[in-house]
């Protein structure tokens, strides 16, 4: 699903990522961890082509990120689900409309977009908040709506940047359970976090970024959220 060959990313004189080599297989669940500012977000942004590598090759879903043309980017992103730390919901529409918008972008009719949106809100336990606006939701609820939106395009790859960073432990565990369920359906998940408890709870392969370098730690399942 993801292959990085000697990927380096520099911002002027600052090297954010240095000679990254990694492979993530289809259907895998991978944690991406490291201290704040280590380069986790930069790596994720490159995966959905918000940033380009300075050197090296990055292949995502069979596409070379660097050679994607601008007009190919929207189609590429429609195969990737994105979950952000602050959810990034659009303020002027309800939870359901936030999700249905993605369906409309995909070319679905209004009614069909709303129907699928409701299904996904049910999946994330947010169907009772469908008509509420982001300002009326708690941080955890926003995250669940954000996750439902990311699933609207039935993505082959789900990228989550600190999705539980603003959540209390119980809500974080609940979110993790949903991510795991999505992964069981075959979606590759890359979840960035600096929460060691969460990593320990699920015990999956972990990619650690330190000083711009990435190393992979193999782990076995220790305990999984029920």
């Amino acid at each position, binding site marked *: 699903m993801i292959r990085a060959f000697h990927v380096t990313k520099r911002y002027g004189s600052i090297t954010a990522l240095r000679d990254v080599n990694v492979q993530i297989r289809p259907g895998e669940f991978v944690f991406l961890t490291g201290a704040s500012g280590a380069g986790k977000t930069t790596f994720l942004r490159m995966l*959905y082509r*918000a940033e380009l590598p300075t050197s090296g090759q990055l292949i995502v879903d069979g596409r070379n990120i660097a050679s994607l043309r*601008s*007009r190919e980017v*929207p*189609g590429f*992103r*429609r195969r990737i689900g*994105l979950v952000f730390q602050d959810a*990034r*919901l*659009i*303020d*002027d*529409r309800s939870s359901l409309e936030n999700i249905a*918008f*993605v369906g*409309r*972008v*995909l*070319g679905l*009719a*209004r009614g069909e977009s709303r129907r699928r949106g409701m299904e996904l809100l049910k999946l994330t336990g947010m169907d009772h908040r469908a008509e509420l606006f982001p300002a009326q939701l708690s941080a955890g609820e926003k995250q669940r709506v954000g996750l439902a*939106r990311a699933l*609207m*395009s039935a993505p082959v790859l789900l990228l989550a940047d600190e999705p539980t960073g603003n959540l209390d432990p119980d809500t974080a565990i609940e979110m993790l359970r949903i991510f795991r369920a999505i992964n069981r359906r075959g979606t590759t998940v890359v979840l960035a976090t600096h929460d060691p408890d969460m990593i320990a709870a699920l015990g999956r392969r972990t990619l650690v970024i330190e000083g711009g370098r990435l190393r992979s730690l193999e782990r076995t399942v220790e305990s999984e959220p029920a």
Partner: protein
Amino acid sequence: MKALFGYASLCIEEAGRGIWFHRRVVAPALIVMMASLVVLGAFMLASDNLNAVLSGWRERGQLQVFLVPEVTPAQQAAIDSAIGGHSAVEEYRFIDPEEAAALFRSDFSELGDVLALLEENPLPGSYAVTIAAPMRSERVLQQLTDDLAALPGVEGAQYDLEIIGRLELGVRALRLVGVLLGGTVLLAAMITTANVIRVMVFARRREIETMRLVGASEAVVVGRFLVEGGLQGLLAGLLALAVLLTAYSFGLAYLDPDSLGFLSILPLRFLSPLMIGGLLAGGTITGLLGSWFAFGPGGVRFD
């Protein structure tokens, strides 16, 4: 076709949502655009009505021949014969000084009986001549006027086209002022719309970035703002029409035709469907161009 329809409906839906949720930001642009369209529409209304008068006069094809007060019966008979024998004349009628005075009193009742203050009736006898429809060209009318004016006993001759020509000049000047003034205000409206859209785009850059991240193409992101500008223009056009129609109806209902003087002869009518379409199209195009300028060269960029 289905995809195009889906794209258009998405853009319209998003644009409508944008206008409604950001109505406080949109309102100033809408008001400026509406005001400029009211100015333009008012000039169109005035010039259209004056044109209707001119075209009515042009179709009448009338000519007046004024006699000198001391005209002899022989001279008048010769004049009568010259007019009646001319191939371009459809019909003619002699108006004696008494009838002319009566017509003056009826047409200008507000002047009172000023003629009664004079020792004698100053109005001359005259002929009202109607030209046959196929002959109503400026050349024929001018020739006939010159021929009749040269006859002994004739003080002068004039035809409506002279007045029409002068009025046409006035209407053209009015239209030019309308186009210049309306155009200037529309340009201001376009710049205002562009700035409002820029402010909205800048204020919503995070939302736009999110749209891009979930896979929205540039066609959707830019298209919805273009449609938003167009819809604002269309809305401004509809509001301008409502203002014009209200003012027109109010004018018809409350103004006394006798107090309008010269304007009382106008067969007043509202803008034609074509002009209404033009005004709405003008508003829509202004809004679209305003939006396009917001995204065009030098427009908003935040990638």
